């Protein structure tokens, strides 16, 4: 029974690893050929492949190089050290979660407003959508500079950029969710002469939860992206974004890939936590909409 579950996972992971190694050989081959030619003596294909998989500054590092770098970084230094990748992950996660929290509050508030007041749908929603057409890479440095001028540095500018990315899926999902209640159940609330607030709290909100959690999963992953993007223009003191930036300054591709893998692990973990919260908070596991 467990093999049926684990087999596809293992096969998929192996396929990714094989493709990764093939890609490393292919991409690193030109540089490696140059180096072997310059060394003067003759070389075989096996020499070339061995060289492509063990380069100091490869175009594409191999999985084992990344894993070794991750291992060294995580175990070689205390967690509080700027050389430990976990420290940077923590900095990014803090900004992402702060932004996520703000994004949830903003997204839910906007959705509640849009659902309760029809006029907001035509007046507010276009701005919400327009906000997402602005490339985050273009607007992030401006937010950092403006907030820096106002005296806000560190976590807040990054959190705001993360919020900017993650409120949108929450607003859209919540608007749909808050409207997902069956017309019959809305009539029912009317026969009880329930007020708007009661209908919202007892019907619309619980009916929206399955939609909310779908949005939250998208949003929490987006908040990590937002936090990393925000770290790129801040000058690179700490955070996964700063690691990516310094890695690309010094051609440390292995360091870049370690940071990327950590970012992916962080996102996966956060999405999984949201999934656990969903299982705990949506009773029956059947969702609100029938």
């Amino acid at each position, binding site marked *: 029974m467990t093999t049926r579950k684990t087999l596809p996972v293992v096969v998929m992971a192996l396929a990714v690893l094989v493709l990764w190694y093939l890609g490393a050989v292919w991409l690193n081959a030109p540089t490696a050929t140059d180096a072997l030619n310059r060394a003067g003596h003759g070389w075989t294909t096996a020499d070339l492949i061995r060289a492509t998989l063990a380069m100091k500054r490869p175009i594409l590092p191999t999985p084992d190089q990344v894993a070794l770098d991750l291992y060294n970084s995580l175990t070689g230094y205390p967690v509080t050290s700027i050389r430990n990748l976990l420290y940077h992950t923590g900095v990014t996660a803090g900004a992402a979660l702060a932004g996520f929290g703000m994004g949830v509050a903003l997204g839910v508030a906007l959705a509640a407003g849009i659902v309760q007041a029809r006029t907001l749908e035509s007046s507010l929603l276009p701005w919400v959508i327009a906000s997402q057409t602005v490339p985050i890479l273009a607007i992030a440095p401006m937010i950092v500079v403006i907030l820096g001028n106002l005296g806000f540095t560190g976590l807040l500018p990054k959190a705001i950029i993360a919020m900017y990315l993650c409120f949108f899926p929450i607003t859209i999902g919540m608007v749909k969710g808050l409207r997902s209640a*069956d017309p*019959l*159940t809305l*009539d*029912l*609330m*009317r*026969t*009880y*002469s*329930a007020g708007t607030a*009661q209908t919202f709290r*007892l*019907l619309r909100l*619980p*009916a929206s*939860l399955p939609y909310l959690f779908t949005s939250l999963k998208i949003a929490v992953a987006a908040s990590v992206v937002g936090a990393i993007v925000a770290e790129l223009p801040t000058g690179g003191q700490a955070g996964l974004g700063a690691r990516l930036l310094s890695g690309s300054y010094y051609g440390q591709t292995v360091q870049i890939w370690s940071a990327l893998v950590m970012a992916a692990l962080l996102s996966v973990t956060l999405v999984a936590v949201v999934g656990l919260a969903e299982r705990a908070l*949506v*009773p*029956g596991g*059947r*969702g*609100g909409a*029938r």
Partner: protein
Amino acid sequence: MPAAQPAPLTLVPPAADAAPRTIVDVRNLTLTYQTTDQPVYALSDVSLSISKGDFISLIGPSGCGKTTLMRVVADLEQPTSGEVTVNGMTPEQARLKRAYGYVFQAPALYPWRTVERNVMLPLEIMGLPRAERQQRAREQLDLVGLSGFERKFPWQLSGGMQQRVSIARALAFNPDLLLMDEPFGALDEITRDHLNLQLTRLWLGTRKTCIFVTHSIAEAVFLSTRIVVMSPRPGRILDVIDCDRDLPRERTLDIRESPEFQRIAHRVREGLMEGHSYDD
């Protein structure tokens, strides 16, 4: 909220009603929907008076306005013209005072609430204390034969059981008037017979005034004190049949074999045939 404190449910013996009080009074009711091409006459000049303790069935083909009529009484639709009073009030006042319980075609239970908490929903809206909410919910679930299912979720119940939960929910705040819109329409015949029997017992025990919308002639004759036969285009009342004279108030399923039952059923069918043009 004065209406928020209804009297506890008591069983009134089926005594001879001295002077039947009018609970629902409908006079010259017309309701027209404006569609883009032409107006739809959902109800045309409908008048009907319903006394306390009556069990009225509205029967007729689709589009005859039987559901619309009930929704007007419930203040879920606005009439174009005509007068409606419920307990001497306008439908809106009656709704705000929670004068009626409404059972929809679908159970419309909240899937994130347990059976018990579904029945407690109207009581929660009325602001009753938690202990009383629970006690009343248990009483009502017992009345519809669902003791022991309090902690189940709606999707764990069969369709008939779900509809019984929705009846318990409508009865939970003890309204005088019960409005039921084809509550058993989606159920199989055996379940339907069983629930009809339960409903007639419930009605005899509680002496609620009931308005019941149905497609089924047998169901209408079995349950009702009076049957209102309606016809479409425009929605109007064709015939009002008094069943109380020929059939006893207390009824069992066997009664459906009796000649009286057959005669009333025949008259209902005649009325339906007359009002329905089968050419479209």
